[in-house]
């Protein structure tokens, strides 16, 4: 309708449904009975139309409305305007037959009575216009077609209906002839004026009006008379209309008969022969009789038809009713079944109005779950079962909910029960239409247990995480204070307490108490309280027992051993309930305690106790470790201190030794030089005056001095190794050996020694001077310790191996017995007399000491013939 309004021009030949107007009559009685202003206004208008029609008919007269007289084919045709006709056509089209029939009938009736027509005739005559209206009714009721006149077909139907109605109406022309004596030609011209007149009036006046106003009228009807069921089709009314026709026909026949009767009397009044009179009389009587029989038959048929058809229709109705009842019963049964599904469903369900949130229906499961009575529940809205803090979110959800979605998961919500407790509910919503209204059906699953289990699991996981973290932290703690603080923090976190304290007094010693506190921000103003737990009062409970102590607030307050905090009570945070576990050593001695107080929510439970015990276990171990660690550290520090002391002492003695060595070098050699020099001087200057013994003695002095000098020099060399700061550098081994051999050249020459060198160009990490001394000693030993008369053969061999330089000096010498192999490296260790193999016995000592100082190694292999000295040093690497 809306679109028809916004686009009234039927430009498009294809009509849309919206533009189609079907004939929807309103029952007159129910509209008049409608007690609102719309019904009242319509009734007033209708009565006014009635009055206007009657007034028009009386004022203008049935036959005084002739306007134009036209001669058509020799017939005198009268055209005029009859207001009631047009009004009634509009009424029948827009409202229904009874709306039009009443004014049409009344107008004609009063109009004809006014022109002094006999009442019996007037009553019959007035039927012609209601009958014409009935034609419209039959057309539109029967054909069920659009009457908007916005399509060609609609126009054709309207023209046909109007034509037929006009012709039916024009029957009146014949009846009125009874009243006014008119000639046959006059009657003809009257009739010929009547029906085209009505027809044209329908087309030219009513047609445009219907075209223009029908949509608005239909809209108005829809708006104001929605409650009045519009009767689309009524078999009974159709039958009534048909029987009216038949009845009318019967009446007309009777009227015609009366007319014949008048004419017969007029004829018989004329002077006629008796025969003729009798013949005419008989004829008239027969005709009279036939007409009456026909009329009665028609009337009977009409009435009987109405009765029979009425019964038939009633039976049809009854059958339809019984079928309807069966259907209804079936529906009711099915509804009951479905209602059972709803009512007996163990899942809480309800329906609510998505616009207002008001509950419309609820099942007992929901009532049971939420604790309300049915009436209480239905008097609430869904907002009443949500906690106030969730309402905002709910409203937002409401706004965003897509009603077109038939079924949706509306999420998890917290629902309020009547007693104020909360349920975790998983909500499913189904949107549907019920009696043209949208309804949301809700299914609720109580997921509280699931949720609780989940929460408990999460809590447990969290606790384990805290415990694990605590273990790690405690393992990494360095000091006792750290351990205590960490344990206190974690204890507070684990037990969700406002206050946690750890203290440790060490083993069996209450004198020195170390303690740490952990507080929630709520307790911040106690942050600087410094009241050490003294192990008396309630603390005794913890310290004297090995098991934990758990007291509720009340239990603690009434405990005989709890005496507050004495003079400290001002400074000490209150103890609201207590959970305390001892800290123990591995051997079971109590060394401290871990305490928590004032649980944020409720009282400490066994769970808290177990957790705290686990934490205490870890903390105890950690505490002990820290203490052991401390002891170890102290011990190590002591050792280090001692080592430093000794090193210092050693340094001093080393310096003394240096000074001593220096003295030896300088001071001992001076007298030696004098001894040797002057003994030599005597031998040279006074030799001739001495005998052989004198010579001998002096020679011994000279030799002894020389030997002693060698000894001193070797000793100095030995002491210098390691004492002198050695700068390690890359020493090219092949070059070094070349130098050494050049230095030893006189010896080699003298001994006729064979030296074989197989040394690649290797860099060793060494102190050049020391390494030179070492190799020199080894090679010279190799040349020296050879059996007399044997030619020394020395092999010098070197190679690099895994970061080391390995070198071997082997000879064909006298060898070293296995039992002496370690001793040869000792200072002054000599295996042979000075006569056979002269030397001071210090050479190999220097070798060993020098190598040790350069992080090298030496070992000796020896057989019957020859020894091999293998030494190794780090290979030099550029860094």
């Amino acid at each position: 309708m809306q679109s028809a309004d916004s686009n009234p021009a039927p430009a498009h030949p294809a009509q849309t449904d919206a533009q189609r107007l079907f004939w929807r009559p309103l029952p007159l009685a129910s509209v008049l009975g409608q007690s609102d202003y719309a019904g009242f206004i319509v009734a007033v208008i209708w009565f006014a139309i009635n009055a206007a029609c009657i007034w028009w008919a009386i004022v203008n007269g049935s036959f005084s409305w002739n306007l134009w007289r036209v001669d058509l084919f020799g017939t005198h045709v009268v055209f005029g305007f009859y207001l009631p006709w047009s009004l009634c056509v509009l009424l029948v089209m827009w409202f229904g037959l009874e709306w039009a029939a009443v004014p049409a009938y009344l107008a004609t009736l009063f109009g004809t009575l006014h022109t002094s027509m006999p009442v019996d005739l007037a009553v019959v005559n007035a039927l012609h216009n209601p009958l014409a209206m009935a034609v419209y009714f039959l057309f539109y009721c029967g054909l069920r077609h659009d009457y908007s006149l916005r399509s060609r077909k609609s126009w054709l139907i309207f023209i046909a209906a109007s034509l037929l109605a006009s012709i039916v109406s024009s029957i009146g022309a014949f009846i009125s002839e009874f009243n006014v004596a008119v000639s046959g030609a006059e009657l003809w011209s009257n009739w010929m004026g009547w029906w085209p007149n009505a027809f044209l009036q329908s087309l030219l006046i009513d047609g445009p009006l219907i075209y223009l106003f029908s949509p608005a009228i239909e809209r108005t009807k829809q708006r104001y008379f929605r409650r009045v069921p519009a009767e689309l089709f009524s078999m009974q009314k159709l039958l009534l209309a048909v029987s009216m026709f038949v009845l009318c026909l019967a009446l007309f026949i009777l009227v015609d008969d009366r007319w014949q009767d008048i004419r017969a009397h007029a004829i018989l009044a004329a002077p006629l022969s008796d025969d003729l009179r009798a013949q005419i009389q008989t004829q008239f009587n027969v005709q009279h009789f036939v007409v009456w029989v026909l009329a009665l038959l028609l009337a009977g048929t009409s009435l009987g038809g109405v009765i029979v058809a009425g019964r038939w229709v009633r039976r049809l109705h009854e059958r339809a009713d019984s079928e309807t009842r069966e259907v209804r019963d079936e529906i009711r049964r099915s509804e009951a079944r479905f209602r059972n599904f709803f009512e007996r469903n163990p899942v809480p369900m309800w329906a609510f109005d998505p616009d207002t949130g008001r509950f419309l229906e609820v099942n007992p499961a929901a009532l049971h779950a939420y604790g309300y009575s049915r009436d209480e529940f239905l008097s609430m809205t869904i907002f009443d079962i949500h906690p106030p803090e969730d309402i905002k979110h709910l409203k937002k959800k409401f706004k965003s909910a897509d009603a077109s979605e038939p079924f949706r998961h509306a999420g998890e919500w917290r629902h309020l029960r009547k007693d104020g407790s909360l349920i975790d509910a998983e909500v499913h919503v189904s949107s549907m239409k019920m009696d043209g209204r949208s309804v949301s059906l809700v299914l609720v699953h109580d997921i509280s247990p699931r949720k609780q289990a989940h929460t408990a699991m999460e809590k447990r996981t969290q606790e384990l995480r805290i415990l694990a973290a605590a273990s790690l932290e405690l393992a990494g703690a360095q000091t006792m204070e750290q351990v205590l603080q960490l344990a206190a923090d974690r204890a507070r976190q684990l037990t969700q307490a406002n206050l946690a304290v750890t203290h440790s007094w060490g083993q069996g010693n209450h004198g020195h108490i170390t303690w740490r506190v952990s507080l929630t921000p709520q307790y911040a103003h106690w942050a600087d309280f410094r009241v050490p737990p003294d192990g008396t009062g309630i603390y005794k409970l913890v310290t004297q027992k090995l098991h934990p102590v758990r007291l509720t607030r009340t239990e603690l307050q009434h405990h005989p051993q709890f005496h507050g905090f004495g003079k400290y009570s001002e400074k000490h945070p209150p103890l609201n309930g207590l959970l305390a576990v001892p800290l123990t050593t591995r051997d079971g001695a109590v060394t401290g305690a871990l305490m928590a107080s004032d649980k944020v929510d409720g009282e400490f439970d066994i769970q808290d106790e177990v957790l705290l015990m686990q934490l205490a276990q870890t903390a105890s171990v950690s505490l002990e470790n820290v203490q052991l660690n401390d002891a170890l550290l102290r011990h190590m520090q002591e050792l280090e201190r001692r080592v430093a002391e000794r090193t210092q002492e050693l340094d001093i003695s080393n310096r003394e030794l240096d000074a001593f060595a220096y003295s030896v070098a300088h001071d001992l050699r001076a007298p030696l030089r004098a001894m040797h020099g002057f003994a030599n001087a005597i031998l040279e200057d006074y030799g001739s005056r001495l005998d052989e013994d004198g010579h001998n003695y002096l020679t011994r002095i000279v030799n002894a001095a020389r030997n002693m000098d060698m000894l001193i020099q070797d000793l100095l060399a030995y002491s210098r190794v390691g004492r002198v700061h050695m700068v390690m550098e890359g020493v090219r081994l092949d070059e070094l050996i070349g130098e050494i051999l050049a230095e030893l050249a006189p010896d080699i020459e003298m001994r006729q020694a064979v030296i074989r060198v197989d040394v690649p160009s290797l860099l060793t990490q060494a102190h050049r001077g020391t390494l030179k001394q070492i190799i020199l000693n080894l090679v010279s030993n190799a040349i020296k310790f050879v059996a007399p008369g044997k030619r020394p053969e020395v092999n010098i061999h070197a190679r690099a191996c895994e970061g080391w330089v390995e070198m071997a000096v082997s000879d064909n010498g006298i060898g070293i017995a296995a039992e002496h192999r370690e001793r040869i490296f000792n200072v002054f260790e000599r295996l042979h007399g000075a006569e056979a193999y002269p030397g001071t016995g210090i050479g190999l000592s220097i070798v060993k000491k020098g190598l040790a100082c350069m992080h090298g190694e030496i070992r000796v292999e020896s057989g019957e013939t020859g020894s091999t000295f293998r030494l190794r040093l780090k290979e030099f690497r550029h860094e």
Partner: protein
Amino acid sequence: MNRNGRTTILLVEDDLNDVMLIKRAFSKSRIVNPIACVENGEDAVAYLRGDGKYADRRQHPLPFMLLLDLKLPRLSGHEVLQWLRGQPLLKRLPVVVLTSSREPVDINRAYELGANSYLVKPVVFEEFAALMRQLQVYWLMLSEHPDIG
């Protein structure tokens, strides 16, 4: 001989045994250069400066070479050397350290302070004599001498 005509060797040695042995070694090696002896560092400095009893340069002429022991009373050999190398002209004087010490500390220090040579006194007299001979050949005969006065 050299162009300055200086032939004296100044021997700084506290050990009289050593002085005798050195002189003997010199005579054995037929070294004819006069040897002036002082017994301590202070005297060595005084001699070189021409102070006090050493003022007479005819009796105590400037040496062409200094034979310096390190371990000396009053002023050590190193100190004498240090002083000497700080003098404007005297610093050119060749100095041969003649000592018993073979300690690297002493050797390095001596060279750092500008010693021209470092010799260790051998115990064996023959070797000592040989050393002195070589000293004479090298410093007295082969080397040219700088101006110092």
